[in-house]
């Protein structure tokens, strides 16, 4: 069975590594590595812990929420027959420590910053002690999910450099504990996986699973491959919506896209962005964007309007007021946007762009080249008198501007997918000094609420955080559009294969015949 990475989730791209923790942290590498090495904890399609598909069978939490005792399934084995042990998880954690700040998720979920002690109590029991009380949901979903058992006995003698140099080597990537093993990797072309008959979880039906790589990121080549049967499953690019009839022989499945958000982030540290500090301006920006029309135009109606950072689908972490808020209030209201702008002192100038004390309401946003969504937003904002100019740059140059010249840029259009921070608590994103708070947003109440999401047990703190987020609007939300998966009519299990966090399960795919 042949498919591409990112089905139902994002565009396709090449895999450049199969080693968890070591390989570049792209969703494509994540998906590929999951076939070989399963994480300690699995996140299901509702973005909740799934112990059935995890290597851990249960977690006991101490009353003070500081000690997490993880019980591994005693019959979960490596492909060479050896049981997966707590020592293997410890080995994976040691790699994180060795990587230090070069570890891409350093600090997320308290890994390793909150870890006071981690030890194997016995071969199948791991105990993690954190330095302060934590919200168990937050720590399990954002911290413990980063732990991977890796073959400690076979790899202990290897240094980081050796692991890096062999992360694409099928002969090195043994033993495995996932449903498939890597049998062949051809750079720029494909990665072939063969079923692992010794997998301790749900045995795969497919003998062979192939990720095909495409030289071009556009949908054309994938479309042609679906049409001619070279691909058994892939995404239909909405840019080719007019040609969808050519794929009528395939079955369709709508997806909600990735579990994350997409937003226009204003740079609060830029002295030229003083307007950004006025919440009325931010609300006006939000009200001026017709998210539904963006969804209709760019994704043929697939997606949801967004108004706060916790995704609408699946609604696992949505507060009741957030659900009502999304359903009751008008999120697109250009008249209300104009009123707010006027209230804030921005009056229409001779060219329609608003002016205040001689200053035009204009800002430059960094976007990826050819961004259609940016162009739509630009025209919508112009209607209410806001001039948003586009600066198109390749991704790494955008990042270099944001980090290298933190006060120079004005706005950035980008997204965030909650992985490995599956619990959407907002820490590192919206708290003062957060590692991924590139816009340098700072609000004392937000800091307190985010802190509470990581400390207070349960979901109430999360609900308070997202409600406050709606109130003060630190970023301007753009819809997270869905996708359309096309697959061979005899391919079954596709719905179970897909996951909004990117955690695919190809072991559930099977051919009808």
């Amino acid at each position: 069975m042949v498919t591409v990475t990112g089905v139902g989730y994002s565009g396709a791209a090449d895999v450049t590594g199969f080693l968890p923790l070591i390989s570049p942290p792209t969703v494509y590498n994540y998906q590929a590595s999951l076939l070989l090495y399963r994480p300690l904890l699995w996140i299901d399609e509702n973005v909740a812990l799934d112990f059935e598909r995890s290597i851990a069978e249960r977690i006991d939490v101490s009353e003070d929420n500081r000690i997490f005792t993880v019980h591994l399934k005693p019959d979960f084995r490596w492909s060479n027959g050896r049981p997966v042990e707590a020592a293997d998880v410890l080995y994976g954690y040691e790699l994180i420590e060795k990587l230090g700040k070069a570890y891409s998720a350093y600090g997320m979920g308290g890994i390793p910053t909150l870890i006071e002690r981690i030890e194997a109590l016995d071969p199948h029991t791991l105990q993690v002690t954190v330095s302060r009380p934590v919200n168990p949901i937050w720590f399990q979903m954002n911290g413990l999910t980063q732990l991977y058992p890796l073959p400690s006995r076979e790899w202990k003698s290897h240094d980081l450099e050796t692991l890096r140099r062999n992360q694409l080597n099928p002969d090195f990537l043994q033993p495995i504990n996932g449903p498939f093993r890597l049998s062949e990797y051809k750079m720029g072309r494909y990665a072939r996986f063969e079923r692992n008959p010794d997998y301790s979880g749900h045995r795969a039906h497919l003998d062979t699973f192939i990720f095909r790589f495409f030289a071009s990121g556009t949908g054309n080549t994938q479309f042609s491959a679906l049409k001619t049967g070279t691909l058994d499953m892939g995404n239909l690019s909405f840019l080719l919506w007019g040609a969808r009839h050519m794929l009528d022989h395939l079955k369709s499945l709508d997806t909600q896209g990735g579990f994350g958000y997409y937003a226009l982030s204003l740079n609060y540290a830029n002295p030229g962005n003083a307007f950004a500090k006025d919440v009325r301006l931010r609300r006006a920006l939000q009200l001026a964007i017709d998210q539904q029309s963006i969804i209709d135009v760019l994704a043929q109606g697939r997606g949801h309007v967004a108004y706060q950072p916790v995704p609408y689908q699946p609604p696992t972490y949505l507060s009741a007021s957030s659900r009502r808020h999304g359903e009751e209030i008008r999120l697109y209201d250009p008249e209300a946007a104009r009123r707010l702008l006027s209230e804030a002192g921005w009056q229409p100038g001779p060219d329609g762009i608003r002016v205040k004390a001689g200053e035009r309401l204009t800002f430059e946003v960094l976007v990826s080249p050819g961004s259609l969504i940016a162009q739509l937003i630009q025209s919508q904002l112009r209607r209410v008198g806001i001039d948003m100019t586009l600066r198109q740059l390749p991704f790494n140059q955008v990042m270099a501007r944001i980090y290298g010249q933190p006060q120079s840029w004005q706005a950035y259009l980008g997204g965030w997918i909650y992985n490995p921070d599956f619990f959407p608590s907002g820490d590192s994103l919206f708290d003062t000094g957060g590692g991924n708070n590139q816009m340098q947003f700072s609000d004392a109440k937000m800091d307190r609420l985010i802190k509470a999401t990581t400390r207070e047990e349960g979901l109430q703190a999360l609900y308070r955080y997202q409600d406050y987020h709606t109130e003060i609007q630190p970023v301007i939300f753009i819809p997270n559009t869905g996708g359309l998966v096309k697959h061979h009519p005899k391919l079954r299990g596709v719905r179970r294969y897909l996951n909004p966090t990117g955690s695919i399960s190809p072991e559930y795919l099977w051919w009808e015949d």
Partner: protein
Amino acid sequence: MLAMVIRRLGESLISLALLMTFVFVLAQITPGGPAYTILGAKATPQAVEALREELGLNLPIWQQYLTWWSRTLQGELGYSHIHQLPVAEVLQTYFLNTIVLYVGAFAFAVLISLVIGMLQAHFDGRWPARLIGASQLTVYSLPTFLIAMLLIVAFSVQLEWFPAGGVSDIREPGFVLADRLHHMALPFATLVLAYTAFMSRYFGQSARVEYRQDYVLTARSRGVPPGRIATRHVLRNALRPLVTVIGIALPYIFVGGVLVESVFDYPGVGFLLWQSALNQDYPVVTDIVLIIGLLTIAGNLLADVVNSIIDVRVRYE
């Protein structure tokens, strides 16, 4: 001849060294870097800095430059942090794909261009020459990627005679020649069409000029058969400008096919260079430029040597 070759080689290597320096410095001073590509959107400033230190990218430019030269002169091509593989291994795969497709298509196009150009010159002023000229102009005017897409629509999507792209049927492991040729058919045809349109026009013009020379008139008046005139006299003299063009074009066929590679999903050097430049994968970029530079030198020298063989006047020049 030998003195000329040595002198030209020396001059060219100095130019190449300057070019490499320019490319290296340009890559270094461009904001960004592979650390951002590797770490992605979740990169924190601390993670970026830590990774840059690990990759040696935080060293002074002059130090990185000297290390790079030292390594290159020892034949080491470095490590691609984007592909997570030695650059030599990355280039080997992509260059092999390129050589098989592009050099093959180019060679085939040269042969066809010779035939078409000679026919065009032979029938100069008559309808066959006009028909050939119109066809050349039409194909020459079409962007290569458009030719590619038209062939895909016709032969792959509609007729389903050929695959739309890729190198082989990935469902079947191993190398199967027939399968490889089947997959290469459309990109090969695209490139042959594009190269032929250009080269046959160029060669046809050159051959037309030769056909108008006195020696051809003399040969005809002496009863030399047309075929012998064409092959023994006109062809050899008309070849010289084409050989020069081929020598100059040789390195560009390695990197000029990025659009065709993109449409046909063909992992070639053009696409690799483009992606590496976008991702700021410096080792791959500088090494490709180095190889192309060496090919340019070799191509020009080869053209001069071949020209001196086929045209005695060049030997004395």
